[in-house]
């Protein structure tokens, strides 16, 4: 299986992009779609949770940390790891990096402004590993 193929079981891998700032969200969606992912978008953490509750096919959550509302991106990441353990997580922020102890298992941190090639590479690697694991032997 090529590690550059974001497809899972013949379907495009679905990522959920959580970012409150509309322009940056739009640009990230563009980045992910150009890389072959199918994208769901949320403007804050509770919106993201609501989407995850009805969609069972999300493979990866890419979330900003600082967002308005009761939950920030770190809370969201912790909730995702707890409620939907197979989902991969990428955490991004323009602020200081979270402490290693605050990072959910397997989560990856990246700083803004984003290096798009590196983000896409990481998204593909994460969904490819999942793909390999989820394929029947």
């Amino acid at each position: 299986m090529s590690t550059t193929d974001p497809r899972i079981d013949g379907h495009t891998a679905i990522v959920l992009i959580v970012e409150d700032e509309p322009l940056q969200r739009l640009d990230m969606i563009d980045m992910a779609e150009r890389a072959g992912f199918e994208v769901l978008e949320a403007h804050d953490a509770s919106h993201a949770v609501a989407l995850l509750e009805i969609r069972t096919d999300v493979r990866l959550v890419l979330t900003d940390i600082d967002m308005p509302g009761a939950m920030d991106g770190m809370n969201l990441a912790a909730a995702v790891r707890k409620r939907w353990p197979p989902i991969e997580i990428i955490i991004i922020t323009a602020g200081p990096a979270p402490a290693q102890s605050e990072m959910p298992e397997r989560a990856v941190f990246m700083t803004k402004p984003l290096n798009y090639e590196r983000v896409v590479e990481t998204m593909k690697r994460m969904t490819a590993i999942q793909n390999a694991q989820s394929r029947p032997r």
Partner: protein
Amino acid sequence: MASRASFGELDHTRETVRIEIGWSIEGMPSIEGEHRFSDYGELRGALLDGDVLVIDDTSTDARTAADATAWTSLRAHAVVIVPVRERGRTVAVLLVHKDMPYHWTDEDVGFLRSAADRLEAANARRREDEQQALINGEIAHRLKNALSMVQAIATQTLRGDASPEGLEAFAHRLQALGHGHDALTSGRMKAATLNDVLGGVLDGAGIRDRCTVHGPTVEMGARAALSTSLLIHELATNAIKYGALCATAGHVDVAWQIEGQGDECRLTLDWSERGGPAVTPPTRKGFGSKLIRLGLVGTGGSDIRYDEEGLRAAFSARLAEVEQA
């Protein structure tokens, strides 16, 4: 002269002193922990007003005689308490005890007062630094968010018109600036260190493990930190595309040192590549070469040589200019 010296912070609500650190001669009981003013006599007024309390004998002094047993249990028979003030309030006290009655001289008290003054100044400076670090962090956060917006706007505006390579180079330079801002705020100091600047940019380019970085701690002001971030980013990009790092065995040595003394002190930095393909000077002088020629502080002082074994770039700038904000 003293038997015990301690420092305690005041809690105005509970009217207590919390003693955390101190020094004492052997045999003196520990006084660490919380103590209520009222258990030790009539001290409250003087403490809150910021007056120095000088007591030669706790068992006879009018302010403490009624609570002499409390003092005796601490083996404190002669006492000086110097309030440490901040913005007109007593925030802490310097306590000096003797295990027998003693007549404190004006010199004794004067010395302790000046020690407390220094503590006060150091305290104020620490708080100011903490405040500044908080503000710096907030500024960097906003700046990096703004850079992220610029990146989004540029990508969306120019997608049809600019080449993908051009857009990518632009985005990467914005990221290098972001790393520069990170380095400027990661330290507890108001300045970045050259080590942090290099680390951030090399990490960002994904080549930190292929570079050996060596040199003393050098603080950098904002201008130097940002122009050096861009400079190192260009060198790193070139090394990955055309230089030593396009070969698997390629490596980069980055070494810097301080030369000269006083006002003549200079920072010199060498970027040497090895293990890559034979290099030739670029035919086109683009923005990247200009950034490299601008050097560490943006005023030049760069020497680029295309040696047999790889590119060697030497940079030099006055240390005072590097450190300036």
